[in-house]
């Protein structure tokens, strides 16, 4: 399949990008998700606004205890250590298992979050890390907590005239426990179930169950799950009656595996 004809624009500053988007242009980042949509003609925009030449679109800056990651930062850059410290190590481990390297070379963290595929890795991991999305609109920047960012299948809290500018993640202490477990039929395949657990010493542990055909389920206080894992995992999973038996069984396993990993010293 070939895409329907579209015009191509290459905004060089953010206000121009916002104007294009306001006039109906579709933002294009690494096009690793948008490309297939265009080719299958599931998306037929009149114009693409290629974000890749915007200033500070990609890149990482650390301010105090926050790390700001430009929306255009590629999975590959994150895999290669663009994000510092323990947070960066966790993210590199996640990035390494997104798709295949050629996809990671182009695909961006912002594109992944804006696309909001329930099975996508950052969609599961960012809420677990307590990240914040930074949206840019006609009235300036706006902060959206990641646990409310993805609102449905391919739906986000971004307004139609907004762009995702960056993602902010906390600088995590070295001693955090982290568990991330996903089930893929093959290497590089989209996840069928993902579970993440972040245990920061002195704070309530946090868990996310994702890739279940809807927005990620965030468990802001996962203390019960950490304490009585099997029973609590069973209870959480029973809250997904729409899933088939297999998916529920794997979801339960995912939670237990993520807890086990996060509990390791």
């Amino acid at each position: 399949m070939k895409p329907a004809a579209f015009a191509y624009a290459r905004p060089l500053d953010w206000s121009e990008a916002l104007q294009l988007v306001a006039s109906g242009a579709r933002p294009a980042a690494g096009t690793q998700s948008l490309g297939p949509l265009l080719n299958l003609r599931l998306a037929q925009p009149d114009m693409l606004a290629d974000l890749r030449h915007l200033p500070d679109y990609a890149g990482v800056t650390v301010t105090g205890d926050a790390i700001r990651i430009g929306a255009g930062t590629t999975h590959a850059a994150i895999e290669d250590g663009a994000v510092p410290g323990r947070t960066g190590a966790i993210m590199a481990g996640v990035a390494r298992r997104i798709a295949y390297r050629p996809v990671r070379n182009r695909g961006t963290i912002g594109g992944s979050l804006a696309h909001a595929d329930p099975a996508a890795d950052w969609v599961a991991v960012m809420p677990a890390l307590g990240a914040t999305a930074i949206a840019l609109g006609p009235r300036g920047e706006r902060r959206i907590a990641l646990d409310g960012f993805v609102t449905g299948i391919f739906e986000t809290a971004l307004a139609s005239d907004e762009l995702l500018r960056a993602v902010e993640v906390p600088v995590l202490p070295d001693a955090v426990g982290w568990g991330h477990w996903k089930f893929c039929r093959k290497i590089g395949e989209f996840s069928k179930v993902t579970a993440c657990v972040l245990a920061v010493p002195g704070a309530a542990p946090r868990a996310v169950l994702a890739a279940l055909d809807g927005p990620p389920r965030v468990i802001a206080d996962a203390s019960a799950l950490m304490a009585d894992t099997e029973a609590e995992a069973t209870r959480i999973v029973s809250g997904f009656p729409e899933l088939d038996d297999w998916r529920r069984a794997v979801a339960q396993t995912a939670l237990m595996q993520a807890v086990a990993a996060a509990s390791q010293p």
Partner: protein
Amino acid sequence: MTVEQRGFGVGASLRRKEDARFLHGRGRFVGDITRPGMLEVAFLRSPIAHARLLGVTKPQGAEKRVFTLADLPGIGTIRANSALPGFRVSEQPALAKDRLRHVGEAIAACVAGSRAAAEDLAAACVLDYEALPAVHDMLQAPLPDQPLIHDHWTMNAFLETRRNDDVSGLDAVAAAKVTRTLRTSRQCMAPLEGRGVLAEWDPRLEQMIVTTSTQMPHVTKTGLADCLGLDEGQVRIVSPDVGGGFGYKGILLPEEIVCASLAIRLGRPVRWLEDRFEHLSASANCREHHYVITAWADKAGKLLGVECEATVDAGAYSSYPFGACLEAAQVGSILPGPYVLPLLRCHTISACTNKPPILPYRGVARTGVCYAMETTLDALARKLDITAEAIRLANLVPPDAMPYRNLVGKVFDSGDYPEALRRAVAAFDLDAIRARQAAGEAVGFGLATFCEQGAHGTSVYHAWGIPFVPGFEQAQARLSPDGVLELRVGVHSHGQGMETTLAQVANEILGVHPDKVRVVHGDTALTPYSTGTWGSRAMVMAGGAVAEACRQLAGRVAAIGAALMQVSVAEVEVADGKVRRRDSDVFVTIADVARTWYRAPQNLPPGVDKGGLEITAGYRPDPDTGTHSYACHAAVARVDVRTGAVVLEDYVIVEDGGKLVNPMIVDGQVMGGLAQGIGTALYEEMPYDRDGQPLAATLADYLLPGTTDVPDVRLEHMETLSPWTTFGQKGIGESGAIGPPGAIVNAINDALARLGAEVFDLPASPSRVLAAIHAAKGGVR
């Protein structure tokens, strides 16, 4: 006949001559070929599985660029009949006429300067149709309450076959009896390169030249000429590099007919390239089988009889040339496998459904049949409490019975089947696996043994009465003035490495260095007629024909060479590219002989053969009932009982392909087939919903095994020569794809035996494996 291994001849693992161009990106596929003024075609395809087609409204202003069947008067209908009694004939129009019978069926051809613009036209067409209930389930399809797909039929089945041995007494005498209901999923063959057609009309030659991605150019030529109302001289098929055949390219395409017709009508070259979406949504056309199989055995595991009810989903039409019942009707003859089977009762149905027409995919019916037989054997073994190895040894045809004629009349040419099994088993530390099992690990060992009939010819196929019964295979060997040997063959090489192996055959006879041998294939204007590359036949048939042509050529070369040396023919031999006096170092080269024939005929001896240095020779093995390569596949699989995920830990294949013309290429063939077999076993399935809609229309949903999913297979060869072929070689091209489902699912079932769980349906996806575990836990079996 024994053949000594030499440098470049038969038996040498010569690097493939064709690889330089493939590895450097210099291969030429249909998609690489353009012509000035060429137009691209996009097909408007049926979005619905079953409907009455009422009309197509063409986009305004583009009426002349959209072609329906009515716009292409005179093009014929595809009919692939069979002589088998009771066969129901389907008529497949090149473009849908008044009925839509599967999702993806071509309705109109949209023509534009680019594919994108052609797709714009297709998107702007409006279809008018009246939906009919879709026949989506092969088991229900033949039932009387189902809507008929072909109105003049009495039931939705192309053919039923029966073999009626009396098995009624077996219950009384058998020590064990098992019955299994098994299913294999519908698959796409998924070659790297899809189909592609470039049609152009040559007004000077008054010839239609179709460059198309096919594995059987000559058959396509005949079929196309027939459908276009041209004589065969007016059709030339060029099949350039082909990126994977597997049976998918062994068919006359409706798209070929349409593109050719358009090229004549428009006076411009016209090209269509299948894309992945078309492939997945319109061409899931293989492998869907259903079995209810019962087997009886005595205490030692010796089979007393098998009863089988087999259904194959043959889709909506009978495709050309192999027809709709090649799979189902073969089930009965393949079921005995490599075993001594005294009784077989078998009923098969080729069900007609609203799905793409079935094609023979690498392994053809054998993959499903082997799966059914091998898993049933293991079920018997478990019941009898004997090992998987023991039950097979109790039944395999012994070497001293060769050649062996089995109960359905298949003749196995040669081999030591039990030895292959023993070697495969010996390649594992079974005690270690049993110890892991005892420790509670869900790990298992599985076997599958089978034989593969290849290169079977006239005596087998005439009974089928398909449009093409293979006969003698011909090859042309010709020396050019500089001594380069050209081999022209009507088979097509698309991964089999025949540009190398046929050169090795020539080297074996004439000693010409393979670098000085050019294999010409893939052009009906240049090559002798052939039914093409299918049925694991090329190395036996074309290899035999090339050998014969080279032998005859050697005779002529010897005569001229002897004369140049002023000795008698009896005093010379042809070897190493030379004509040499037997008793001395005196020789002339074959190049000297060629130069003499073409450029210095004054030096030719009187009475020289006027036919010169071009030979066309024919070959057919006698008997031509086919070679039987055979193999034992053995797998170790580990199951994650929490998720149902399966990991293949180890895989061994012991394989006997007779004389291996190029062992390295055989390894490649077996490994490629194995990857596809792993796909069948664990990953690939095209589900259809109740409306006949394919549900895995992208590669995100249709899972193919990747490099990391194929284990490092350990391959071992035996080399029992076939007594019937030129060098003792056997067809082996499909073998790798036959064994994996049986071996892998047997390994899974061995791993699950402790839990009392068993997998029945392919692919053994995590959800199926876990469902089996849950069913066992719930006591439901």
